[in-house]
């Protein structure tokens, strides 16, 4: 009897779990599924309200993708985003790696505190800084240039990267560096020749995280840059694939999906590290 009840309970729990997962998979995944379907539909099919939108009422087409790649700035925006991403990753690594090492090893107790303060600057949002920054960008003569983004983006990628790398460096045993220094390397030499090569996975994490932030950023790109050919993906797709009131829905959805999925795939691989960074040590 008791055992039976236990089985019932286990079963109802499994069903409950299945329902919860199914509900959220539909809620969270549906927009992407919808993008995918929309990309391959003919306009005549999309814009006929009588048609069942879940099926292809006319044969699938590649026309929307052709339009996206050949007749819009999409490829330019992809290139701009990749270029800004690579440059920002470079700046972030050059500045964050030594800073994180210094805070983890050389500055003793208040390295940790300073680390937390730097982390807190990550909480200062673009929507608070974009008005003064737009002035600074104009003063530097960088308006409408992607260089404005190359300069400004590290201001939010560096703090989080320092935080991630600090945790990483702390997990490398001190003895290794001490041994290397006894063998004649300087502290800085030990950092460059020993610690950095040992930190490949930490560095990769920072690269992915920085790149993701660059592709996601919207407010600064919208504020600093107006010409279509200098746009980033995040602003170009929702702004320039719309002419007046006409939305090119098929191409729009193509732009959204193509820009989203590769990043998500890579991000997924490094998820646990980002989470460790975000939880500020509240999980051990």
């Amino acid at each position, binding site marked *: 009897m008791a055992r039976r009840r236990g089985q019932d309970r286990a079963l109802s729990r499994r069903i409950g779990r299945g329902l919860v997962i199914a509900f959220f998979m539909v809620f969270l995944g549906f927009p992407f599924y919808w993008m995918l379907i929309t990309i391959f539909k003919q306009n005549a099919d999309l814009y006929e309200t009588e048609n069942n939108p879940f099926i292809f009422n006319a044969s699938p087409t590649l026309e929307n993708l052709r339009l996206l790649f050949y007749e819009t700035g999409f490829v330019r925006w992809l290139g701009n985003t990749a270029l800004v991403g690579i440059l920002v990753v470079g700046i972030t690594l050059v500045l964050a790696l030594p800073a994180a090492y210094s805070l983890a090893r050389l500055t003793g107790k208040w390295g940790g505190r300073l680390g937390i303060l730097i982390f807190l600057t990550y909480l200062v949002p673009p929507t608070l800084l974009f008005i*003064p920054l737009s002035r600074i960008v104009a003063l530097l003569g960088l308006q409408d240039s992607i260089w404005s983004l190359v300069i400004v983006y590290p*201001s939010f990628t560096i703090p989080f990267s320092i935080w991630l790398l600090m945790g990483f460096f702390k997990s490398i045993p001190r003895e290794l560096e001490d041994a290397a220094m006894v063998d004649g390397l300087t502290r800085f030499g030990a950092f460059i020749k020993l610690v950095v090569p040992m930190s490949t996975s930490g560095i990769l994490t920072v690269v992915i995280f920085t790149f993701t932030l660059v592709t996601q950023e919207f407010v600064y790109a919208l504020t600093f840059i107006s010409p279509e050919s200098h746009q980033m993906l995040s602003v170009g797709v929702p702004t320039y694939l719309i002419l007046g009131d006409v939305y090119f829905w098929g191409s729009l959805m193509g732009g959204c999906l193509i820009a989203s999925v590769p990043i998500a795939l890579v*991000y997924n691989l490094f*998820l646990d590290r980002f989470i460790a960074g975000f939880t500020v040590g509240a999980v051990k």
Partner: protein
Amino acid sequence: MAVTGAPRARKRGKRSSGFGLGVAMFLPAVVYVLLLVAVPFGMAFFYAFSDARIGSGGEHFVGFDNFASVLENPTFRKALGNSFIFTISSQVLVLIGSTALALALKDKFRGRGFVRFLILLPWVAPISLGAIGWKWILDSIYSVVNWVLIAVHLVKPFDKPMWLGQPSLAMISVIVVHTWRLLPFSTVILLAGLTAIPRDIPEAAAVDGAGFWRTLFEITLPMLRPILNVAMLFGIVFTFTDMIVVYVLTAGGPYDSTQVLPSLAFFTGIQGSDLAAGAAISLFLVPLLVIVALLMLRVAHRAEVT
């Protein structure tokens, strides 16, 4: 004596130069971030007390004039209220939803990796693009939601809801879309917290006859509290300061019914060229950010102590 003294002195010398090296290694990063965060932050205050406009040189100090005129502006009051509605509603939805989802995903099962990838998409995809996807789903004429509702006879074809065109529906829409975007983030944070709870504690409770809900409310959730706090603090900042969902979906409309502080600051300061008023509006974000930062420091401090 001399033989043992020399290396020790050298070691001490190295250590003190280590501190100098330490400063030299973190200074460039700190200066960079300060120049691009602290300086504009200070400038935001400066502008808010001036009459700065795009295209005009020479600002003058005007005291609290901007704040006074902003506070009298009905659009601003509307946006202030909306910001709180937007933040609180979506946070409640996110916390309930992500707790349920994290509990469901806690145990291993086949396909868990794929499910995790799928539910992570809204967080990782650029939100401006995700929001465009929703704009299509909620379109006034071609909305798939409406098509389904009509198909099951819940609404009539000539009386379709305009998801982004009616004030209260538009507010609900931006809240749901923002919930959609933040839920994955909160879920994975809670999952990390759940795996840190020793398995035997809830199991022991189950053996003692505690049901699912009792175990949840009396054991799991209290043990999860620190991590719930972290997820909530981030969620509040990401929501209260976000303008992307509103900008893409409704541009604050209809009739400012979805206008929030960040979007209003953008429309006033950048599109309307009134830097001073825009800066004054965005400064209203600061008190909440300070509170969150202090709470975050407490979380970090506790993690350091224990």
